[in-house]
């Protein structure tokens, strides 16, 4: 997991936690995982009007090794699920997953043979953004809430998640 493992257990680390989480939350690099319509809205959030750069996350990383947030934007098919899991495994810890849109969250309107009915069957999800597609504002809202969540996570919780 990184820093946390090097620390002896039982030591109170509130301030260290806060500063580490602060840096983590404010430079969250997403891995592009655009799958369908939602991906276009995700790209629009990076575009000039909504401008994700305001929150320190304009760098969409192509390589999962360099990313710590996976935005699953769109419908995950049974054919894609192993690939998705694989990319998730390749991301380095600590990592977070944001499920964007109802398709990624629950299969949405496509309750059928082709889709995984919710990406949380494949990877653990930290934040769900509803909508079909969620507006860029909603995505940004979800991301900001995730920032809050990261800022208040303790090392112990993060360790348990990994």
């Amino acid at each position, binding site marked *: 997991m990184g820093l946390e493992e090097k620390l002896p257990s039982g030591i109170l680390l509130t301030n260290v936690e806060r500063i580490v989480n602060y840096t983590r939350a404010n430079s969250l690099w997403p891995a592009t995982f655009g799958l369908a319509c939602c991906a276009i809205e995700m790209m629009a959030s990076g575009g000039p009007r909504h401008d994700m750069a305001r929150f320190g996350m304009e760098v969409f990383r192509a390589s999962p090794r360099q990313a710590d947030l996976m935005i699953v934007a769109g419908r995950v098919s049974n054919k894609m699920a*192993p690939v998705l899991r694989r990319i998730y495994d390749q991301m380095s810890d600590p990592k977070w997953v944001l499920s964007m849109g109802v398709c990624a969250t629950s299969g949405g309107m496509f309750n*059928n*043979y*082709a889709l*995984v009915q919710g990406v949380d069957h494949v990877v653990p999800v930290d934040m769900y953004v509803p909508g079909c597609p969620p507006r860029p504002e909603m995505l940004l809202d979800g991301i900001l809430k995730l920032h809050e969540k990261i800022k208040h996570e303790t090392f112990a919780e993060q360790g348990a998640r990994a």
Partner: protein
Amino acid sequence: MSHVTPVPGTSPSVGAQLPTTTTGVAGRSALSLDDIAQRITVRFPAVRAEQAFGELTLHVEPDDLLEVVTFCRDDDELSCELLSDLSGVHWPAGEHTIARQTSTTGWPDYRVSREQGVVEVLYILRSVSRNHHFRISAGTVDTSPRLPSVTGVYPTANFHEREVYDFFGVEFDGHPDLTRILMPDDWVGHPHRKDYPLGGIDIPYKNDKFIPPPHERDLREVID
């Protein structure tokens, strides 16, 4: 492999006949549906022509399919350069009744009984130079569906036929690489057949642990 290599010399050169104007249609006029039907039925008496909704459908026996399609492509009058679409429809065997819908527009009951299920494959042939199109329909029993592949005539049929194989299980004889295209390679069943349920497939991934089902395991091993 799924790649397509256009086979040189298998289709007449259409480039030469194509217009250079921007009006979109060739100078040569389109044939009327009656003319098309006549031209084909004169040549192939076994073909049954049918018109509905302003569209022409030619019902062709599977054995004649290749010949008819090649004729449509090579014939100067028909000159169908483009295979626009190729799709399947499954008509399962047995009694099927859907009672008159208690809905606002009342069309009659749907009541059929078939001894044999049929997978109907529909080809839309289009002439770009003459601007007409029509449909060729070929049926095959759904228990062991099999049709000749038209990839030799229209290389574009490659993906289409793979799709119909994927969704309906139709084996196309002579296809260069008949594999699944949209579903995973190890998928069981042909999802767009009527006897395949819409959903209800167990999700093989549980509790964020990736446990591949047995039939998927060696695929994973090779990838790793």
